[in-house]
């Protein structure tokens, strides 16, 4: 261990030093290396001349193109001694004084892992030059530094946090309400600038509402605050908002941007359900954590290691969604782990580990070994689906019983497969042993090839490889011969095998298992033969064991527990023991897909897993579930993947905390995977990054830009912030206040800095000076103006129209489909990372595949198109207009007053009042048929369907309404959509299976419904129609054929949730012709879900014939037009 430590610290130090300042530090690096390796005299003139005339030109011409300043293939550069000593990726290229140990030499001799240069091999003379130079100790003249920055270890962000007292200020000590102000004012003073006057109360309440809750205040709340003479009114307001669930929701969304939150797994194979069962659990846990001001250290600890930090707290397990709601990368473990490393590193510490997957970080002191230390932590963790509700709330008995049944079915099937797969491996042990010498031809990248049952499985080859390595380390007597023979270079095998055989013969039974030794009395001809002899032995043992078991069954005696001969039993353990490479780990399917044959087996086993997930998602009363991480039972030490390629494994690295934080003596993790220790290191008070990164984010979300403008990169490329003292003061305060986020909010929000106006100093000369001197407002001489985000915009529209549903938590549902049924906060919109609906990306929503620390902010005309033309905005305008025009005994002027208060939280100016009145008078009008909620529940369209359809694909509303039917266009049949048509009584399918006629009903609330359906196909000609009833939640409810016949269906009870759809679908059977049909559907709401906010008695019913109606073509009324204009205004969208 000691040796390893020295070596690692040397590599680290030399790496850091030569990357930054080649001159001075490089000498230190040489010294360090010198102490550890070869004697290294100061280069004399002759040595330098040899170097300059022979070596340097050779290095430049032969290697420089790929390993120079411009390119560093494999992370290697050859233009400095330090770089050569460090080497590429992991191994030093040059060991001074030892040509035979230098990778450079094996590469140019083309006898090692690399053949270099790839195209034009060096000639013998050139090779001799390099050899001589290395033997001389690799002399290199001392070179001067060329303008690089200082030692990365000295970078400000890696220094301990120092808490300075807030500076004293000369000009306006009264202005300072919290210590934050002293820091800000002192910088302003130094720049001879002054802050802006305080914002007025209307502005202030709107500002603080948005920054804490993402919502505007109501007119009543504004009036109350404006009138409140209490000097503590503002502070009380801040405290009240901090306690509200809406605060938790708004700040949770900030966090979810960092956690690359989504409700789906991304692109996946068909056998795996795409929807996460646990995303909402995680989201709701984050909301609650913010609302309850869970100390930030605990907040992080639980998200990374709740399984160990709070094993008995079921609810806390939901926190681990942080790790498990990332993209699934088609099940590729290497990428899933990379995503976890990235999100943990950047979110918590502002460190970017991603670069170090392939090579040492170019700027930051993060060596590739740090990356694989972390890789080992997550690689030794696996997923587990667990309930995340208190034990008393685990669903109805019926739910639990069925769940247990399905889990048992999976277990049984899984056990069956485990046995089968393990036996398959045992049967082919010889082939697996032979293939050990060509591991690189079996990359363990899942699903890059379709693996059939009779193929060699890469996963077993690599497990066998790590098993053999473990056996080597342990000196296991069964494998001593294997390892001795394996150590012989291939080309010398024939020659040296006899010697090894003799050596083996001299070893006692303690060292070599006699059962094995008996097979190696004659020298083997090749490693293949070694593998064959081992294979034959193992095959024999397997056969013996199976025979023994069969005999026991026949004799009715208990199953044997061991082979009688201890030697053979030891061999059996290799195949059957707990540590055996033949076993399929008993882990979640998500982690062990590669053990199964790609098509048949994997698809089959997933059916059972799917049945479990289906049951949970189909049961409205299902409790919350979490997918947490737990440690694997068998810990595999990670190895560096050269250039990030899992097929080229390098040295083993210990799992431990990144060195730049923990120092060169960072001790290895000892507990399981080390995940808990990692989390503890992140929140350790000695870690200066975590609290700095967090207070900076809080600042960023209040002011628009952080004190450090790159909130997720605190590496050496982030310059020291001008307000480092303030950052540190906040960071220390965070820790002192028990990591309370709300304390930091208060310090910021109660400051004069936050409360100043957005307009700038009143005195115009002063303002101009400020604008000129600090146009970007870095010094905060005014409050910046905030533009509403996508969520804030949508939520605000719902709030001002009085439609916002403030239900907290629960499953996600899509935002804009299903008419106007979704009126919840945007936070609860269903996020399909694979196909995010248009409005999300148009309004700069955070890309759910990536950690997004700062959203981009664009203004594109598609945003304006949404605002002008999307029914969602028009519906809000209509709703609000209806409330305003319903005001009794109010004049139009008074109504406009009210309207402005609702939208802007202020009365109109006289000019605005005048303009609004004029607008109303001159506006175009058109008769406006209002659709009932029942009518709005139905949609009429086409979709694609195949023989074993589970749902309608590509649902498209029919575009044209004749007055009595929906169809493709004015002419019928339509050139594109053919005969597809829907009428009040029935309809006609389109010309092919891609154009089935679809009558879609969308549930406006959660609850239970009943369905009565009568479908009739009258013609005797043709071959009839195919009919389906699909539920978006339950799949196929019914399917039947009609030809000159009728079908009546009653479904007394079906659970639905808001936004669920039912599709009544008809397509042609066989061929087109005589396919018109009649179909009436009556749906009754038989009760909302008990205990939900939407509760209440059943009263609604829908009837497909009665509700049939044309489009809501109603043009907006003058009032609605006016309201829409106000909702589109800049004043609504910007918060000052």
């Amino acid at each position: 261990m000691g040796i390893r430590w020295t070596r690692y610290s040397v590599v680290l130090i030399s790496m850091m030093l030569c990357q930054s300042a080649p001159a001075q530090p490089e000498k230190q690096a040489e010294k360090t290396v010198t102490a550890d390796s070869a004697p290294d005299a100061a280069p004399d003139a002759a040595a330098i001349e040899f170097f300059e005339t022979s070596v340097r030109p050779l290095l430049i011409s032969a290697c420089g193109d790929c390993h120079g300043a411009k390119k560093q293939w494999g992370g290697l550069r050859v233009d400095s001694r330090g770089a050569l000593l460090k080497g590429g990726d992991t191994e030093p290229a040059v060991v001074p004084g030892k040509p035979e140990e230098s990778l450079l030499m094996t590469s140019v001799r083309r006898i090692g892992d690399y053949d270099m240069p790839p195209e034009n091999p060096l000639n013998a003379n050139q090779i001799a030059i390099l050899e001589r130079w290395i033997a001389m100790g690799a002399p290199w003249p001392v070179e001067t530094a060329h303008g690089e920055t200082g030692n990365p270890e000295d970078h400000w962000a890696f220094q301990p946090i120092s808490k300075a007292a807030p500076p004293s200020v000369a000009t306006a000590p009264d202005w300072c309400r919290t210590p934050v102000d002293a820091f800000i004012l002192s910088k302003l003073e130094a720049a001879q600038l002054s802050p802006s006057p305080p914002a007025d109360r209307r502005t202030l309440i709107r500002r603080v509402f948005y920054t804490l809750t993402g919502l505007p205040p109501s007119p009543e709340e504004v009036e109350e605050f404006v009138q409140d003479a209490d000097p503590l009114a503002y502070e009380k307001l801040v405290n009240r908002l901090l306690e509200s669930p809406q605060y938790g929701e708004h700040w949770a969304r900030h966090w979810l941007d960092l956690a690359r939150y989504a409700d789906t797994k991304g692109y996946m194979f068909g056998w795996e359900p795409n929807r996460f069962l646990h995303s909402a659990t995680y989201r709701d846990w984050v909301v609650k954590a913010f609302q309850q001001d869970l100390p930030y250290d605990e907040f992080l600890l639980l998200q990374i290691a709740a399984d160990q930090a709070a094993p008995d707290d079921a609810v806390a397990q939901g926190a681990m969604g942080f790790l498990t709601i990332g993209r699934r990368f088609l099940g590729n473990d290497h990428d899933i782990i990379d995503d976890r490393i990235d999100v943990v590193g950047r979110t918590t510490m502002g460190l970017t580990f991603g670069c170090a997957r392939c090579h040492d970080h170019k700027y930051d002191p993060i060596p590739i070994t740090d990356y694989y230390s972390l890789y080992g932590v997550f690689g030794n963790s696996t997923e587990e689906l667990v309930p995340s509700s208190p034990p008393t709330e685990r669903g109805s008995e019926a739910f639990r019983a069925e769940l247990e049944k399905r889990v048992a079915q999976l277990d049984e099937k899984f056990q069956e497969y485990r046995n089968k797969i393990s036996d398959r491996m045992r049967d082919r042990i010889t082939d697996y042993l032979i293939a050990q010498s060509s591991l690189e031809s079996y990359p363990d990248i899942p699903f890059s090839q379709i693996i059939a049952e009779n193929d060699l499985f890469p996963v077993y080859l690599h497990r066998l490889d790590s098993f053999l390595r473990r056996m080597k380390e342990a000196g296991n007597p069964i494998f001593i011969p294997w390892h001795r023979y394996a150590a012989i270079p291939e080309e010398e095998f024939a020659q040296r095998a006899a010697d090894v055989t003799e050596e083996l013969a001299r070893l006692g039974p303690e060292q070599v298992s006699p059962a094995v030794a008996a097979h190696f009395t004659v020298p083997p001809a090749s490693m293949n033969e070694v593998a064959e002899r081992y294979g034959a032995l193992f095959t024999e043992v397997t056969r013996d064991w199976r025979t023994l078991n069969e005999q026991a069954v026949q004799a009715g005696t208990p199953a044997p527990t061991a082979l009688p001969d201890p030697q053979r039993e030891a061999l059996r353990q290799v195949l059957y023991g707990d540590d055996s490479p033949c076993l399929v780990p008993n882990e979640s399917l998500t982690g062990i897909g590669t053990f199964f044959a790609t098509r048949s087996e994997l698809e089959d086993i997933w059916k059972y897993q799917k049945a479990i997930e289906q049951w949970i998602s189909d049961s409205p009363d299902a409790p919350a579930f979490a997918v947490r991480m737990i440690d694997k039972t068998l810990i595999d030490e990670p190895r560096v993947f050269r250039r990030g390629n899992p097929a080229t494994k390098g040295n083993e690295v210990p799992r431990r905390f990144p060195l730049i934080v923990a120092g060169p003596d960072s001790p290895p993790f000892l507990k399981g995977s080390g995940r808990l220790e990692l989390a503890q290191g992140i929140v350790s008070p000695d870690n200066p990054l975590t609290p700095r990164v967090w207070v900076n984010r809080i600042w960023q979300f209040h002011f628009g830009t952080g004190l450090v403008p790159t909130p997720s990169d605190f590496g050496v490329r982030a310059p020291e912030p001008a307000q480092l003292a303030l950052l540190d003061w906040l960071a220390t305060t965070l820790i002192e206040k028990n990591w309370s986020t709300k304390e930091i909010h208060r310090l910021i929000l109660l400051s004069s800095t936050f409360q100043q106006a957005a307009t700038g100093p009143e005195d115009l000369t002063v303002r101009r000076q400020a604008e000129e001197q600090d146009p970007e407002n870095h010094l905060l001489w005014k409050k910046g103006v905030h533009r509403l985000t996508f969520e804030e915009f949508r939520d605000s529209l719902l709030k001002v129209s009085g439609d916002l549903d403030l239900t907290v938590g629960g499953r996600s549902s899509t935002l804009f489909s299903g008419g106007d049924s979704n009126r919840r906060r945007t936070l609860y919109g269903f996020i399909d990372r694979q196909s995010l609906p248009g409005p999300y990306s148009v309004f700069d929503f955070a890309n759910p595949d990536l950690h997004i620390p700062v959203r981009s902010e664009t203004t594109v005309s598609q945003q304006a198109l949404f605002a002008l033309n999307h029914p969602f905005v028009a519906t809000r305008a209509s709703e609000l207009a209806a409330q305003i025009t319903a005001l009794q005994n109010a004049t139009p002027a008074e109504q406009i007053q009210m309207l402005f208060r609702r939208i802007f939280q202020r009365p109109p100016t006289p000019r605005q009042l005048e303009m609004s009145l004029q607008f109303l008078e001159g506006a175009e009008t058109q008769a406006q048929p209002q659709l009932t909620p029942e009518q709005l529940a139905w949609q009429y369209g086409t979709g694609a369907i195949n023989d074993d359809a589970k749902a309608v694909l590509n649902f498209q509303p029919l575009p044209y309404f004749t007055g009595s039917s929906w169809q493709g266009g004015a002419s019928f049949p339509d050139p594109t959509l053919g005969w597809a048509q829907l009428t009040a009584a029935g309809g006609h399918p389109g010309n092919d299976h891609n154009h089935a006629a679809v009558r879609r009903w969308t549930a406006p609330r959660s609850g239970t419904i009943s369905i009565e359906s009568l479908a009739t196909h009258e013609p005797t000609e043709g071959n009839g129609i195919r009919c389906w009833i699909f539920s978006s939640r339950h799949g196929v409810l019914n399917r039947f054929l009609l030809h000159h016949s009728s079908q009546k269906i009653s479904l007394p009870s079906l659970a639905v949730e808001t936004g669920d759809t039912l599709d009544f679908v008809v397509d042609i059977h066989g061929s087109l012709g005589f396919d018109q049909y009649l179909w009436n559907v009556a749906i009754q709401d038989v009760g909302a879900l008990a205990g939900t906010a939407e509760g209440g008695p059943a009263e609604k019913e829908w009837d497909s014939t009665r509700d049939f109606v044309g489009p809501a073509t109603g043009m907006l009324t003058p009032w609605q037009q006016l309201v829409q204009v106000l909702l589109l205004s800049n004043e609504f969208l910007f918060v000052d």
Partner: protein
Amino acid sequence: MFPPQIPGNSPFPFGGRVVDRRSMLQRSAMGMGTIGLAGLMSTPRSVGAAGPALDSSVRQPHFPGTAKRVIHFFLNGGPSHIDTFDPKPMLKKYEGQAPPVSLATERKTGAAFPSPYSFKKYGESGIEVSELFAKTAEHIDDIAVIRSMYAQVPNHEPSLMLMNCGDSVLSRPSVGAWTLYGLGSENQNLPGFIAMCPQGLPIKGSSNWQSGFLPGAFQGTYVDPQHQTIDKLIENIRSPHASTSMQRRQLDLLQSLNSEHQQQFADDRLDSRIQSFELAFRMQMEAADAFDVEQEPEHIQQMYGSGVHARQTLIARRLLERGVRYVQLWHGAGQPWDDHANIEKNHRKLAGEIDQPIAALLADLKQRGMLEDTLVLWGGEFGRTPTVELGGDGKSQLGRDHNHYGFSVWMAGGGVRGGTVYGTTDDYGFKAVENPTSIHDFHATILHLLGFDHEKLTYRYAGRDFRLTDVHGHVIQEVLA
């Protein structure tokens, strides 16, 4: 003493020219010219603006490019190079037996499978092309075929990501997004990057034209060309609830309110948003016009032929003509070219759908003088095996498996040296052997034609400067005119 600008905040990391939006507005008295309203989306350095300020106004590349716009025919699923642009007569010799070169692909394959189609020399260059693309081949002297492409794995998803976004795994911006980021768009009334795919999405959906870590404004806008009405083509392009005259009045009131509000704050974002409504208003008309192929004269419509592929190709030409920067035309939903079985019939049908439109586009661009600065790209995410695919029963499927070791793409127009063949695969078409060309090389060449040094078109994200070609890529000089 101020924190320096975040590098990613600068929209012009490559030294482009910033057009000041205000002065631009003042110069164009009517408010908007036909050239891009610079700064439409810009939020330049306004206080409190959280993110990078980036817009789609026209920008100058590193050096004058030979191509100004790109159209990419994406034959998703993996077209067989052996049956299209890379003839392999040697396969005939090995028919019924395994060829000397046989590599592991996604599934099992067996004997050599000679192309069922006939090849013929075309043009002065005499390049051989199969009967599948006989019409396209008439333009072979304008085309540079790269026969030595290779990708990383024989699977659709990673290969699609690699071909479109330069990385097979990570979420990275697409070539179109990078192009828009680099050059902006010449028409602010239309999206600058449009991806069309009939009847639904290819696999990986919109990830194929994603903006990754670049702002959402650079993402491709998806259009399903099977629709004939404009409101189906572009989201929210028509109002279901207001007439044009109503909207005009609404916008007039909106702008009065906005200008009153704007007097209080000096924030460029307010101005940008005001303009965006005017642009959206006009876009409703311009977009309808651009997508309406019925406006084309009869002989042009006939030249492209009938069917949805002819239609999307003709729409594409109308878009390119109007200054849209990057158009990608996908063959269809899912992976149509993925012919593991019965390739002869299927490839013939698929090629039949696009051969005439592609040929028509090349001719049409040429007659309009647009071919010289329009880069036309053709290809899939990989090619197919020269060996026949075997089913689970070991029997021939008469199809070909995925092949990432060697395949063909071609480029035309926009400064490409026509009548060129670059690189070769082995005698059987399994693996690129001469001048193996990576996808990064292909991307570097595309960027070069557009006027960019691919190593310098960068964007700062997650602590480092990212580029389309990561740390790879060489411009293929041999295909440049």
